[in-house]
């Protein structure tokens, strides 16, 4: 299920928490690839391992077995600092909430990854990034002065400023209302279409997953189904309901 040209590759990845009798297997021998320029939604009931998949694929968490390759680099052998540097240059993140440093303005938040890399960002670059997400005029505002949807857009702009190989999104619309969710997801979709950006998103919301090119369904640490192409909300919801139904 994976190809050596894919931007992100997971090869036989197993992740266990704890040891001995208390060990919990969150991912069980998962092999999957995420091709360049695709938008993948990862779904599953709670406890299915969807967040663990994202953390392992993004190098936020170490795998117990198997290997993870991001943009041709095997991250299993990297030490903490190298991993951080890889994340900084090749990976972007958007979370459900608490995405922004509250002490900094939107523009400063977007500039943060560049500054951490020791680069002095130029004004035009930052304005362009904010304009891309439709916030070109709000660069001087602090997070507390922005709405939830606007904060997520700033987070997306920040994630994209380093032109990463892959953008990970963990329930990016979890804290937003329907209309705002629609805007944010449309924005992600647009980035994939226009810039061939690879996006991997974890969600429990079928409506959000309907924006993706492919939906991965997880249960008990394994990929149980893949829905290729754009799917309707109803299809996805149906599959999810089947997964969550108690097994008799």
């Amino acid at each position, binding site marked *: 299920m994976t190809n050596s040209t894919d931007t992100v590759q997971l090869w036989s990845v197993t992740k266990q928490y704890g040891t001995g009798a208390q060990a919990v297997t969150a991912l069980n021998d998962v092999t999957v690839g995420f091709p360049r320029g695709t938008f993948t939604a990862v779904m599953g009931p709670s406890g299915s391992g969807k967040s663990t998949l994202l953390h392992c694929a993004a190098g936020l968490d170490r795998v117990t077995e198997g290997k993870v390759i991001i943009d041709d680099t095997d991250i299993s052998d990297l030490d903490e600092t190298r991993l951080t540097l890889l*994340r900084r240059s090749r990976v972007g993140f958007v*979370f459900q909430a608490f995405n922004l440093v509250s*002490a900094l303005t939107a523009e400063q938040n977007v500039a943060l*990854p560049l500054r951490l890399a020791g680069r002095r960002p130029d004004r035009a670059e930052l304005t362009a990034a904010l304009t891309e997400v439709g916030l070109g005029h709000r660069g001087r505002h602090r997070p507390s002065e922005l709405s939830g949807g606007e904060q997520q857009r700033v987070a997306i702009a920040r994630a994209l400023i380093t032109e990463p190989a892959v953008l990970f999104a963990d329930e990016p619309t979890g804290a937003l209302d329907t209309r705002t969710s629609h805007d944010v997801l449309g924005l992600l979709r647009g980035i994939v279409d226009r810039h061939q950006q690879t996006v991997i998103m974890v969600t429990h919301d079928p409506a959000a997953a309907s924006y993706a090119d492919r939906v991965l369904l997880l249960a008990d640490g394994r990929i149980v189904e893949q829905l290729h192409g754009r799917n309707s909300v109803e299809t996805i919801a149906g599959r999810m309901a089947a997964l969550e139904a108690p097994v008799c």
Partner: protein
Amino acid sequence: MLSLATIRKRWASFLGTFVALGLGVTILAMTALVLTSAEPEVPRRYAGTQVVVQSPGVDQSDGTFTPSKPWSQQRTAELLRALGGVPGVAKAVPDRAFYAQAVIDGKPVADPGSELRGHAWSSAAFGPEQLVAGSAPTGDRQVVVDASLGLAPGSPVTLLTVTGPAAYTVSGTVKSASFYVSDSAAEALAPGVRVIGLVTAPGADVSAVAGAAAAAVGGDGKVLHGDALAELEAKSAEKTRWIGMQILIAMAGLTAFVSIFVVASTFAFAIVQRRREFGLLRTIGATPRQIKRMMYSESLAVGVAAGLTGVLLGALLAPALGSLMVEGGLEPAGFTVRFQALPLLGSFSLGLVVAMLGVWSASRRAARIAPLEALREATVEHRPMTRGRWIAGGVFTALGLGLVAVAADSESDSMINNALYAAMALIVGLTLFAPAVIPLIVRLVWWPLSGLRGATSMVARESSLTAVRRTASTAAPVLVTVGFAVLIAGLFQMKATGYALEETVKQEATSVVTAQGTPGLSDAAVAAVPGGASLLPTQLYAGGTDHVGAVGMSDTAFQKARTRMTVSAGSLDGLKGENTMVVKASTASWLGWTTGRSVPVTFEDGRSVDVKVVAEITDNSSTSSVLLTTGTVRAHDPSALTSVVYTAGTTSPSTLAPLGAQSLSTAEYASRTNSEDDDLVQIFLIILIGMSLGYTCLAIANTLLMATAERAADFAVLRLSGATRRQVLRIVASESALAVGIGTTLGLLIAVVTLLGIRSGLSSQLGTNVNLNLPWSTMALTIGVCLALALVSSVLPARMALRRTSARVAV
């Protein structure tokens, strides 16, 4: 960019650090300026002399600041001949100094300090002193006095000397507080010579003269020139300065320690609150090193701002501290603060170092935060005791206990500071153990209340247990304050219960005659008290640099004192006439002055005489090492002044006043000496306790303000679960009280351990029992203030938070 922005945004959490550091640097700058200003200076009397020979110094390790061992009359004459022959020396002049005071309008003119003010006229060459009017003194009854006394040449003046008041005629006046008599008159009044000034010939090479003089003197003295002339400073001034220095050092040490403590615990607490932010930064590509650097630059920015403020304030306040020290008798009169760049620069840098040290452990912890932390919602602390923490805690506790032993073994003057250092190490040790110790103490403190079923007690206990950091941050400053306050107050309340000589001598006495406006009582004053029991202290010089304090006892005094003495060898009856002595057992074994021997002793007049040891007494019998008759002391120490006379009779004040003496009832005398001691103790206590209390206010308020603001959500949940506003406030109050209880328990533990160690040390040093009284009033006051502070600074912000949330929470 990020650091500054963070400081702007989170100013509340940096405010505590800023104030703690600013205050710390202020106190450091102030003390450093005063300390560096308090350098010895060449006494003005010697201003015009470039080379001086001083008699051999004696051992100073007993902390009594004993002046150098005087030369005898004969030895002085030999030295004068030898030094007079040194090329380049125009004249070698001995400094014969003696006690003298003018009596004007029936009262001795008060003398700042207790220096000897009488001198031989030949030593006026040291200044050189210029006559303002009149001529040099001749004969036995002429004197040159300070022009400011308003006496014209030719007018009569009464001079008070060791023997008593005597009539002199003013022959001339000078512009200094000295009394000059003729050389022959001075020779009769002065003890052995300690200083010989060399008046150099014009154009003589000073260092060549000094070298030649050193060769001429050999081992029997020390040649001073250049900066070394500052060693001529009177020992009494040196002692005053030394005591002042001890207090300043204690202040500076305590300040540095408490500021590091407050800054470190503030940063440590801030880390917990900013966990998610650091996690986010790690996720988007901040390396652990960058997180560390960020924390350091935040700390640096606050440190620089606080340091500059502190240095400025310190420089402004230093003169005030200086004059306070002079007023409190902790610096010699005439002390002024000199502004120097180095101490200010030093305090500023020290402030930065404190800021860096404070952030050190916090930044290490921040750097270890994993990127995933940004995704976790709960703020449950999971800080188990790491191995490093156990080890460091153990090391500091062991160090503290070791320092207690050192303090217990040190001289009484440095004991207080050593005890403070010991307590500091113990505090650091216990704080490191806090995560392990606090849950234990919470359960212990709460155990008696476990019968209470209320929700208040449950929530308060559980949240204290979960938020160990917050509990520790509140408890820590309380621990420091209670620990130091009880320790310092307890140290001063320790009293030897052995028989002080004065205690035994005062038996049956109803009144006490002591000096008033004079450094001691003249013979005439003692004679004015019929049947008095008097004590005449002096100094004995044994071989080498050894020396020992001795007391000449009048017959009456001795008869009373001996009733409480235990003789271990010889007989007390032998103490009579001249050149006999009774020696305390420990002194006898130290100097080899065993009963029956006649040992050579050098007295204040520089002469060496064989004195017979007639008896040895146990160490418990007397606080004085050597007992002599007043006759022996007077024969060999022409400058000794009687300290006190006890009598059963009464002496009229009009007789005593012109003699510089006063009569007090024994009760009055006891309360006066006590209150004089107490005054110094009070100053010291107020300074130190006030300082740590100040920091406590700061730390407690800071922690609780930071914590309570963040807990608004918790409060809202409590309110939604049906808690009334009053109940929530009661929970907050209980938590604060619990934290104060923990701090108090640990602080008392540290203070009591240190005090017990010192008591056992003192007991074995003095060979007597030492009482340990806990300073209950200080303790109650300190704990009360801490509790009040903690309650105010937690309940008030909680009330405000509740008012805000209640607007949002529909109840």
